[in-house]
Protein backbone atom coordinates (compact mmCIF):
# COMPACT_ATOMS: atom_id res chain seq x y z
CA UNK A 1 0.00 0.00 0.00
CA UNK A 2 1.16 3.52 -0.76
CA UNK A 3 2.26 5.70 2.10
CA UNK A 4 -0.08 8.45 3.33
CA UNK A 5 2.35 11.04 2.11
CA UNK A 6 5.23 10.37 -0.22
CA UNK A 7 7.56 12.93 -1.80
CA UNK A 8 10.27 11.77 -4.16
CA UNK A 9 13.15 13.60 -5.77
CA UNK A 10 11.74 17.05 -5.04
CA UNK A 11 13.99 19.66 -6.65
CA UNK A 12 13.49 23.41 -6.65
CA UNK A 13 15.65 26.14 -8.15
CA UNK A 14 15.34 29.90 -7.76
CA UNK A 15 17.20 31.41 -10.66
CA UNK A 16 20.64 29.86 -10.40
CA UNK A 17 20.23 28.83 -6.79
CA UNK A 18 19.23 25.26 -6.02
CA UNK A 19 17.02 25.45 -2.97
CA UNK A 20 16.16 21.75 -2.87
CA UNK A 21 18.08 18.89 -4.46
CA UNK A 22 16.23 15.62 -5.03
CA UNK A 23 14.70 15.39 -1.56
CA UNK A 24 12.75 12.24 -0.64
CA UNK A 25 10.34 12.38 2.25
CA UNK A 26 7.64 9.91 3.25
CA UNK A 27 5.28 9.72 6.19
CA UNK A 28 2.73 7.10 7.22
CA UNK A 29 1.58 8.37 10.61
CA UNK A 30 2.77 10.12 13.74
CA UNK A 31 5.05 13.14 13.96
CA UNK A 32 8.06 13.73 11.73
CA UNK A 33 10.38 16.70 12.19
CA UNK A 34 12.50 18.50 9.63
CA UNK A 35 15.51 20.34 11.02
CA UNK A 36 18.45 22.13 9.47
CA UNK A 37 20.18 25.51 9.29
CA UNK A 38 18.37 28.56 7.95
CA UNK A 39 18.20 28.54 4.20
CA UNK A 40 18.43 24.74 4.11
CA UNK A 41 15.11 24.64 2.25
CA UNK A 42 12.70 23.56 4.98
CA UNK A 43 10.05 26.21 4.40
CA UNK A 44 10.49 25.87 0.63
CA UNK A 45 9.63 22.20 1.04
CA UNK A 46 6.41 23.16 2.86
CA UNK A 47 5.55 25.66 0.15
CA UNK A 48 5.91 22.93 -2.44
CA UNK A 49 3.90 20.41 -0.42
CA UNK A 50 1.02 22.90 -0.12
CA UNK A 51 1.09 24.01 -3.74
CA UNK A 52 2.32 27.57 -3.14
CA UNK A 53 5.44 26.94 -5.26
CA UNK A 54 5.66 24.63 -8.24
CA UNK A 55 8.57 22.17 -7.96
CA UNK A 56 11.02 21.80 -10.83
CA UNK A 57 11.37 18.05 -10.56
CA UNK A 58 10.09 15.12 -8.53
CA UNK A 59 6.66 14.02 -7.39
CA UNK A 60 4.50 14.24 -4.29
CA UNK A 61 1.60 11.92 -3.63
CA UNK A 62 -0.94 12.08 -0.84
CA UNK A 63 -3.14 9.02 -0.30
CA UNK A 64 -1.92 7.86 -3.68
CA UNK A 65 -2.97 11.08 -5.41
CA UNK A 66 -0.37 13.21 -7.21
CA UNK A 67 -0.25 16.75 -5.86
CA UNK A 68 1.81 18.56 -8.46
CA UNK A 69 -0.31 20.78 -10.62
CA UNK A 70 -2.99 21.15 -7.97
CA UNK A 71 -3.81 24.56 -6.54
CA UNK A 72 -3.30 25.25 -2.83
CA UNK A 73 -7.03 25.21 -2.16
CA UNK A 74 -7.38 21.83 -3.90
CA UNK A 75 -4.57 20.44 -1.78
CA UNK A 76 -6.25 21.78 1.35
CA UNK A 77 -9.49 20.14 0.24
CA UNK A 78 -7.64 16.81 -0.08
CA UNK A 79 -6.61 17.06 3.56
CA UNK A 80 -3.28 18.87 3.95
CA UNK A 81 -3.12 22.12 5.87
CA UNK A 82 -0.35 24.21 7.36
CA UNK A 83 0.73 27.04 9.63
CA UNK A 84 3.34 29.70 8.88
CA UNK A 85 6.72 30.46 10.35
CA UNK A 86 5.91 34.14 10.83
CA UNK A 87 2.19 33.82 11.72
CA UNK A 88 -0.14 34.84 8.94
CA UNK A 89 -3.51 35.30 10.56
CA UNK A 90 -6.25 37.43 9.04
CA UNK A 91 -5.31 40.14 11.47
CA UNK A 92 -8.40 42.33 11.31
CA UNK A 93 -10.90 39.48 11.43
CA UNK A 94 -12.13 38.05 14.71
CA UNK A 95 -10.77 34.84 16.17
CA UNK A 96 -13.83 32.82 15.22
CA UNK A 97 -13.90 34.30 11.71
CA UNK A 98 -10.34 33.14 11.22
CA UNK A 99 -11.41 29.61 12.06
CA UNK A 100 -14.46 29.88 9.79
CA UNK A 101 -12.25 30.84 6.86
CA UNK A 102 -10.26 27.70 7.56
CA UNK A 103 -13.43 25.67 6.96
CA UNK A 104 -13.87 27.15 3.49
CA UNK A 105 -12.95 24.01 1.61
CA UNK A 106 -15.55 21.99 3.56
CA UNK A 107 -18.50 24.24 2.77
CA UNK A 108 -20.82 22.86 0.11
CA UNK A 109 -22.92 25.96 -0.42
CA UNK A 110 -23.37 27.52 -3.83
CA UNK A 111 -23.90 31.12 -4.79
CA UNK A 112 -27.64 30.54 -4.98
CA UNK A 113 -27.80 29.19 -1.40
CA UNK A 114 -26.14 32.37 -0.20
CA UNK A 115 -28.34 34.72 -2.22
CA UNK A 116 -31.59 32.93 -1.39
CA UNK A 117 -30.81 32.46 2.33
CA UNK A 118 -32.60 29.12 2.22
CA UNK A 119 -32.79 26.56 5.04
CA UNK A 120 -29.61 24.86 3.79
CA UNK A 121 -27.74 28.10 4.30
CA UNK A 122 -29.04 28.60 7.84
CA UNK A 123 -28.29 25.00 8.77
CA UNK A 124 -24.76 25.12 7.40
CA UNK A 125 -23.92 28.42 9.05
CA UNK A 126 -25.16 27.16 12.41
CA UNK A 127 -23.17 23.97 12.04
CA UNK A 128 -20.02 25.90 11.12
CA UNK A 129 -20.26 28.07 14.22
CA UNK A 130 -20.70 25.06 16.47
CA UNK A 131 -17.65 23.40 15.02
CA UNK A 132 -15.60 26.59 15.18
CA UNK A 133 -16.42 27.02 18.86
CA UNK A 134 -15.45 23.40 19.52
CA UNK A 135 -12.09 23.94 17.82
CA UNK A 136 -11.41 27.09 19.81
CA UNK A 137 -12.22 25.11 22.91
CA UNK A 138 -9.67 22.50 21.93
CA UNK A 139 -6.82 25.03 21.65
CA UNK A 140 -7.98 27.01 24.68
CA UNK A 141 -9.21 30.17 22.95
CA UNK A 142 -12.94 29.79 23.60
CA UNK A 143 -12.99 32.98 25.68
CA UNK A 144 -11.46 35.01 22.83
CA UNK A 145 -13.87 34.03 20.04
CA UNK A 146 -14.92 37.59 19.28
CA UNK A 147 -11.57 39.30 19.81
CA UNK A 148 -9.82 40.73 16.81
CA UNK A 149 -6.93 38.40 15.93
CA UNK A 150 -4.41 41.26 15.84
CA UNK A 151 -4.91 41.91 19.54
CA UNK A 152 -4.09 38.40 20.75
CA UNK A 153 -0.79 37.80 22.54
CA UNK A 154 1.89 36.04 20.53
CA UNK A 155 1.42 32.54 21.89
CA UNK A 156 -2.35 32.72 21.41
CA UNK A 157 -1.85 33.79 17.81
CA UNK A 158 0.16 30.63 17.21
CA UNK A 159 -2.60 28.56 18.78
CA UNK A 160 -5.21 30.32 16.64
CA UNK A 161 -3.19 29.50 13.53
CA UNK A 162 -3.27 25.87 14.61
CA UNK A 163 -7.05 25.99 15.15
CA UNK A 164 -7.53 27.62 11.75
CA UNK A 165 -5.50 24.88 10.09
CA UNK A 166 -7.44 22.18 11.95
CA UNK A 167 -10.69 23.74 10.74
CA UNK A 168 -10.02 22.38 7.26
CA UNK A 169 -10.18 18.86 8.74
CA UNK A 170 -6.74 17.83 7.54
CA UNK A 171 -5.28 14.35 7.67
CA UNK A 172 -1.79 15.81 7.46
CA UNK A 173 -0.77 18.94 9.29
CA UNK A 174 2.35 20.92 8.41
CA UNK A 175 3.60 23.16 11.22
CA UNK A 176 6.34 25.70 10.54
CA UNK A 177 8.15 26.48 13.81
CA UNK A 178 5.01 26.26 15.97
CA UNK A 179 6.84 26.89 19.25
CA UNK A 180 8.86 29.89 18.11
CA UNK A 181 8.49 32.62 20.69
CA UNK A 182 6.61 30.47 23.15
CA UNK A 183 7.68 30.05 26.76
CA UNK A 184 8.86 26.57 27.71
CA UNK A 185 5.60 25.92 29.51
CA UNK A 186 3.57 27.01 26.49
CA UNK A 187 5.69 24.96 24.13
CA UNK A 188 5.25 21.91 26.37
CA UNK A 189 1.48 22.33 26.39
CA UNK A 190 1.43 22.68 22.62
CA UNK A 191 3.44 19.48 22.20
CA UNK A 192 1.00 17.62 24.43
CA UNK A 193 -1.85 18.97 22.28
CA UNK A 194 -0.13 17.74 19.11
CA UNK A 195 0.30 14.30 20.65
CA UNK A 196 -3.40 14.29 21.53
CA UNK A 197 -4.31 15.17 17.97
CA UNK A 198 -2.23 12.30 16.67
CA UNK A 199 -3.91 9.88 19.05
CA UNK A 200 -7.51 11.23 18.92
CA UNK A 201 -7.83 12.16 15.28
CA UNK A 202 -5.18 9.93 13.74
CA UNK A 203 -3.52 13.06 12.39
CA UNK A 204 -0.08 12.89 10.80
CA UNK A 205 2.14 15.91 11.48
CA UNK A 206 5.28 17.31 9.91
CA UNK A 207 7.13 19.83 12.06
CA UNK A 208 9.80 22.33 11.18
CA UNK A 209 11.53 23.20 14.43
CA UNK A 210 14.67 24.87 15.69
CA UNK A 211 14.08 24.02 19.29
CA UNK A 212 16.05 20.79 19.57
CA UNK A 213 14.48 19.89 22.89
CA UNK A 214 11.02 19.94 21.32
CA UNK A 215 12.24 17.97 18.33
CA UNK A 216 13.79 15.26 20.48
CA UNK A 217 10.79 14.99 22.77
CA UNK A 218 7.99 14.83 20.30
CA UNK A 219 9.21 13.40 17.00
CA UNK A 220 8.94 9.82 15.90
CA UNK A 221 11.41 10.52 13.16
CA UNK A 222 13.75 13.37 12.21
CA UNK A 223 14.93 14.50 8.79
CA UNK A 224 17.92 16.85 8.48
CA UNK A 225 18.29 19.21 5.54
CA UNK A 226 21.42 21.15 4.68
CA UNK A 227 21.85 23.30 1.57
CA UNK A 228 18.75 21.79 0.06
CA UNK A 229 19.87 18.19 0.50
CA UNK A 230 18.78 15.55 2.91
CA UNK A 231 21.85 14.63 4.96
CA UNK A 232 20.29 12.36 7.56
CA UNK A 233 17.07 10.71 8.55
CA UNK A 234 15.98 8.42 11.35
CA UNK A 235 14.87 8.24 14.98
CA UNK A 236 15.82 11.35 17.00
CA UNK A 237 18.62 9.72 19.06
CA UNK A 238 20.30 8.35 15.98
CA UNK A 239 20.20 11.65 14.09
CA UNK A 240 21.48 13.56 17.09
CA UNK A 241 24.71 11.59 17.08
CA UNK A 242 25.19 11.58 13.31
CA UNK A 243 28.60 13.06 12.47
CA UNK A 244 27.37 15.05 9.45
CA UNK A 245 24.49 16.52 11.39
CA UNK A 246 26.78 17.61 14.18
CA UNK A 247 29.14 19.23 11.74
CA UNK A 248 26.52 21.00 9.64
CA UNK A 249 24.04 21.91 12.28
CA UNK A 250 24.43 21.03 15.91
CA UNK A 251 28.06 21.97 16.51
CA UNK A 252 30.75 20.12 18.37
CA UNK A 253 31.72 22.35 21.22
CA UNK A 254 30.30 22.20 24.73
CA UNK A 255 26.60 22.67 25.09
CA UNK A 256 25.36 26.11 26.00
CA UNK A 257 24.43 25.61 29.65
CA UNK A 258 28.00 24.57 30.44
CA UNK A 259 29.31 27.71 28.77
CA UNK A 260 26.91 29.71 30.90
CA UNK A 261 28.45 28.37 34.03
CA UNK A 262 31.91 29.12 32.72
CA UNK A 263 31.12 32.85 32.51
Amino acid at each position, binding site marked *: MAALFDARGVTKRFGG*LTALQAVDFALESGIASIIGPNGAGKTTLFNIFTGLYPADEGSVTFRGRALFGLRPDQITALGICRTFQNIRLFANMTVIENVLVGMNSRIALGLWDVLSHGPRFARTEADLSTRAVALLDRVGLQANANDVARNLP*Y*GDQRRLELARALASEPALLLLDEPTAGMTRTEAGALMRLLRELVVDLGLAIILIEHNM*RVVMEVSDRVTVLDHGEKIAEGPPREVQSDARVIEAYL*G*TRGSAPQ*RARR*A
Partner: protein
Amino acid sequence: MLSVDSLDVAYGEIRALKGVGLQVGRGEIVTILGNNGAGKTTTLKTISGLLQPLRGTITLEAESLVGVPPHEIVGRGVAHVPEGRRIFNRLTVRENLMMGAYPRRDAGVPADLERVVTLFPRLKERITQVAGTLSGGEQQMLAIGRALMANPRLLLLDEPSMGLAPVLVEQIFDTIADINRQGTTILLVEQNAAMALSIAHRGYVLETGAIALAGTATELADNPEVRRAYLGE
Protein backbone atom coordinates in the same frame (compact mmCIF):
# COMPACT_ATOMS: atom_id res chain seq x y z
CA MET B 1 26.67 55.43 29.49
CA LEU B 2 23.08 54.58 28.49
CA SER B 3 20.32 55.10 30.96
CA VAL B 4 16.70 54.19 30.33
CA ASP B 5 14.10 55.15 32.86
CA SER B 6 10.38 54.30 33.30
CA LEU B 7 9.84 53.74 29.61
CA ASP B 8 6.28 53.19 28.33
CA VAL B 9 5.71 52.16 24.72
CA ALA B 10 2.47 51.15 23.01
CA TYR B 11 1.39 49.76 19.64
CA GLY B 12 -2.06 51.19 19.15
CA GLU B 13 -4.01 49.99 22.15
CA ILE B 14 -1.52 47.34 23.19
CA ARG B 15 0.97 48.41 25.79
CA ALA B 16 4.31 46.79 24.92
CA LEU B 17 6.54 48.30 27.62
CA LYS B 18 5.49 49.30 31.11
CA GLY B 19 7.98 51.39 33.02
CA VAL B 20 11.15 49.71 31.81
CA GLY B 21 14.38 51.00 33.30
CA LEU B 22 17.92 49.81 32.66
CA GLN B 23 21.53 51.02 32.71
CA VAL B 24 24.46 50.13 30.49
CA GLY B 25 27.91 51.14 31.70
CA ARG B 26 30.85 51.96 29.44
CA GLY B 27 32.62 48.84 28.19
CA GLU B 28 29.96 46.43 29.38
CA ILE B 29 28.01 43.72 27.65
CA VAL B 30 24.50 43.88 29.04
CA THR B 31 21.93 41.36 27.95
CA ILE B 32 18.15 41.48 27.98
CA LEU B 33 16.52 38.08 28.29
CA GLY B 34 12.89 37.23 27.84
CA ASN B 35 10.33 35.42 25.76
CA ASN B 36 8.87 36.58 22.51
CA GLY B 37 6.46 39.38 23.06
CA ALA B 38 8.11 40.33 26.35
CA GLY B 39 9.26 43.62 24.85
CA LYS B 40 12.96 43.04 24.13
CA THR B 41 12.88 44.16 20.50
CA THR B 42 10.57 47.01 21.38
CA THR B 43 13.13 48.24 23.92
CA LEU B 44 15.91 48.29 21.34
CA LYS B 45 13.72 49.92 18.69
CA THR B 46 12.77 52.65 21.14
CA ILE B 47 16.39 53.33 22.04
CA SER B 48 17.39 53.62 18.39
CA GLY B 49 14.42 55.88 17.62
CA LEU B 50 12.36 53.55 15.44
CA LEU B 51 9.58 53.74 18.02
CA GLN B 52 8.51 56.70 20.10
CA PRO B 53 7.83 56.15 23.81
CA LEU B 54 4.63 57.36 25.44
CA ARG B 55 6.69 58.49 28.40
CA GLY B 56 10.00 57.84 30.07
CA THR B 57 13.57 58.95 29.38
CA ILE B 58 16.46 57.57 27.39
CA THR B 59 19.78 59.32 27.92
CA LEU B 60 23.13 58.61 26.32
CA GLU B 61 26.03 60.32 28.11
CA ALA B 62 23.63 62.88 29.59
CA GLU B 63 21.97 63.64 26.25
CA SER B 64 18.32 62.71 25.77
CA LEU B 65 17.53 60.46 22.81
CA VAL B 66 13.75 60.77 23.07
CA GLY B 67 12.26 62.43 20.03
CA VAL B 68 15.51 62.24 18.07
CA PRO B 69 14.90 60.57 14.68
CA PRO B 70 16.72 57.25 14.12
CA HIS B 71 19.07 58.59 11.47
CA GLU B 72 20.39 61.17 13.93
CA ILE B 73 20.73 58.70 16.77
CA VAL B 74 23.29 56.83 14.67
CA GLY B 75 25.32 60.03 14.58
CA ARG B 76 25.26 60.14 18.38
CA GLY B 77 27.12 56.82 18.47
CA VAL B 78 24.38 54.20 18.75
CA ALA B 79 24.29 51.48 16.09
CA HIS B 80 21.45 48.95 15.98
CA VAL B 81 21.69 45.51 14.38
CA PRO B 82 18.01 44.76 13.90
CA GLU B 83 16.21 41.49 14.36
CA GLY B 84 16.36 39.36 11.24
CA ARG B 85 19.58 41.12 10.09
CA ARG B 86 17.84 43.32 7.49
CA ILE B 87 20.88 43.62 5.25
CA PHE B 88 20.38 45.20 1.82
CA ASN B 89 20.11 42.09 -0.33
CA ARG B 90 20.51 43.82 -3.67
CA LEU B 91 23.56 45.84 -2.67
CA THR B 92 27.06 44.37 -2.68
CA VAL B 93 28.82 43.54 0.55
CA ARG B 94 31.00 46.62 0.19
CA GLU B 95 28.00 48.86 -0.52
CA ASN B 96 26.27 47.45 2.55
CA LEU B 97 29.30 48.23 4.69
CA MET B 98 29.64 51.72 3.22
CA MET B 99 25.98 52.40 4.00
CA GLY B 100 26.88 51.71 7.61
CA ALA B 101 29.23 54.69 7.44
CA TYR B 102 26.72 56.85 5.54
CA PRO B 103 26.58 59.88 7.84
CA ARG B 104 30.30 59.90 8.59
CA ARG B 105 32.42 62.68 7.16
CA ASP B 106 35.67 61.81 8.99
CA ALA B 107 38.76 60.23 7.50
CA GLY B 108 38.54 57.08 9.62
CA VAL B 109 36.18 55.18 7.31
CA PRO B 110 38.80 53.21 5.33
CA ALA B 111 40.49 52.15 8.58
CA ASP B 112 37.17 50.96 9.97
CA LEU B 113 36.44 49.04 6.79
CA GLU B 114 39.79 47.33 7.26
CA ARG B 115 38.97 46.57 10.88
CA VAL B 116 35.61 45.02 9.97
CA VAL B 117 37.00 42.76 7.24
CA THR B 118 39.76 41.68 9.59
CA LEU B 119 37.15 40.79 12.16
CA PHE B 120 35.12 38.93 9.53
CA PRO B 121 37.55 37.56 6.92
CA ARG B 122 34.63 35.90 5.11
CA LEU B 123 33.28 39.33 4.20
CA LYS B 124 36.58 40.26 2.63
CA GLU B 125 36.40 37.23 0.37
CA ARG B 126 32.91 38.24 -0.75
CA ILE B 127 33.31 42.01 -0.80
CA THR B 128 32.00 42.47 -4.37
CA GLN B 129 29.28 39.86 -4.10
CA VAL B 130 25.61 40.84 -3.87
CA ALA B 131 24.62 40.46 -0.23
CA GLY B 132 21.49 38.44 -0.98
CA THR B 133 23.65 35.51 -2.04
CA LEU B 134 25.41 35.20 1.34
CA SER B 135 24.57 32.36 3.71
CA GLY B 136 22.67 33.05 6.91
CA GLY B 137 25.78 33.20 9.04
CA GLU B 138 27.58 35.49 6.62
CA GLN B 139 24.58 37.76 6.52
CA GLN B 140 24.68 38.04 10.29
CA MET B 141 28.37 38.94 10.11
CA LEU B 142 27.58 41.55 7.48
CA ALA B 143 24.82 43.02 9.63
CA ILE B 144 27.18 43.35 12.58
CA GLY B 145 30.02 44.60 10.41
CA ARG B 146 27.75 47.18 8.81
CA ALA B 147 26.77 48.50 12.22
CA LEU B 148 30.43 48.68 13.26
CA MET B 149 31.12 50.92 10.24
CA ALA B 150 29.25 53.69 12.07
CA ASN B 151 32.05 53.48 14.64
CA PRO B 152 29.51 53.28 17.46
CA ARG B 153 30.10 53.78 21.14
CA LEU B 154 27.10 51.58 21.85
CA LEU B 155 26.07 48.57 19.78
CA LEU B 156 22.52 47.24 20.04
CA LEU B 157 22.24 43.61 18.95
CA ASP B 158 18.84 42.02 18.43
CA GLU B 159 18.84 38.22 18.42
CA PRO B 160 22.09 37.63 16.59
CA SER B 161 21.63 33.87 16.97
CA MET B 162 18.17 33.76 15.45
CA GLY B 163 17.80 31.19 12.72
CA LEU B 164 21.43 30.17 12.80
CA ALA B 165 22.61 26.62 13.18
CA PRO B 166 23.91 25.91 16.68
CA VAL B 167 27.39 25.54 15.19
CA LEU B 168 27.36 29.12 13.87
CA VAL B 169 25.84 30.61 16.99
CA GLU B 170 29.04 29.90 18.91
CA GLN B 171 31.19 31.69 16.35
CA ILE B 172 28.98 34.75 16.33
CA PHE B 173 29.06 34.99 20.11
CA ASP B 174 32.82 34.67 20.19
CA THR B 175 33.03 37.59 17.76
CA ILE B 176 30.64 39.68 19.85
CA ALA B 177 32.90 39.15 22.85
CA ASP B 178 35.88 40.22 20.68
CA ILE B 179 34.15 43.40 19.58
CA ASN B 180 33.47 44.22 23.20
CA ARG B 181 37.11 43.64 24.13
CA GLN B 182 38.08 46.14 21.43
CA GLY B 183 36.14 48.77 23.37
CA THR B 184 32.53 48.82 22.13
CA THR B 185 29.76 48.75 24.68
CA ILE B 186 27.06 46.23 23.83
CA LEU B 187 23.39 45.85 24.66
CA LEU B 188 22.39 42.35 23.61
CA VAL B 189 18.88 40.98 23.24
CA GLU B 190 18.75 37.19 23.05
CA GLN B 191 16.35 34.29 23.26
CA ASN B 192 19.26 31.95 23.71
CA ALA B 193 19.77 32.86 27.34
CA ALA B 194 22.60 30.42 27.93
CA MET B 195 24.71 31.89 25.16
CA ALA B 196 23.92 35.46 26.11
CA LEU B 197 24.81 34.93 29.77
CA SER B 198 28.05 33.23 28.76
CA ILE B 199 29.44 36.49 27.34
CA ALA B 200 27.50 39.19 29.22
CA HIS B 201 28.62 41.06 32.32
CA ARG B 202 25.15 41.92 33.50
CA GLY B 203 21.63 41.17 32.45
CA TYR B 204 17.95 42.00 32.79
CA VAL B 205 14.97 39.69 32.47
CA LEU B 206 11.97 41.22 30.73
CA GLU B 207 8.54 39.72 31.31
CA THR B 208 5.37 41.06 29.64
CA GLY B 209 6.83 44.50 29.16
CA ALA B 210 8.42 45.01 32.56
CA ILE B 211 11.80 44.26 34.13
CA ALA B 212 11.33 41.18 36.31
CA LEU B 213 14.93 40.57 37.39
CA ALA B 214 18.29 42.25 37.15
CA GLY B 215 21.77 41.21 38.17
CA THR B 216 25.23 40.14 37.08
CA ALA B 217 25.44 37.36 34.53
CA THR B 218 26.56 34.88 37.18
CA GLU B 219 23.74 35.88 39.53
CA LEU B 220 21.21 35.40 36.77
CA ALA B 221 22.73 32.12 35.61
CA ASP B 222 22.49 30.83 39.19
CA ASN B 223 19.00 32.15 39.81
CA PRO B 224 16.63 29.18 40.06
CA GLU B 225 13.82 31.10 38.32
CA VAL B 226 16.06 31.91 35.37
CA ARG B 227 17.42 28.40 35.28
CA ARG B 228 13.95 26.94 35.12
CA ALA B 229 12.33 29.41 32.71
CA TYR B 230 15.18 30.37 30.38
CA LEU B 231 17.98 27.85 30.73
CA GLY B 232 15.60 24.93 30.69
CA GLU B 233 16.68 23.00 33.75
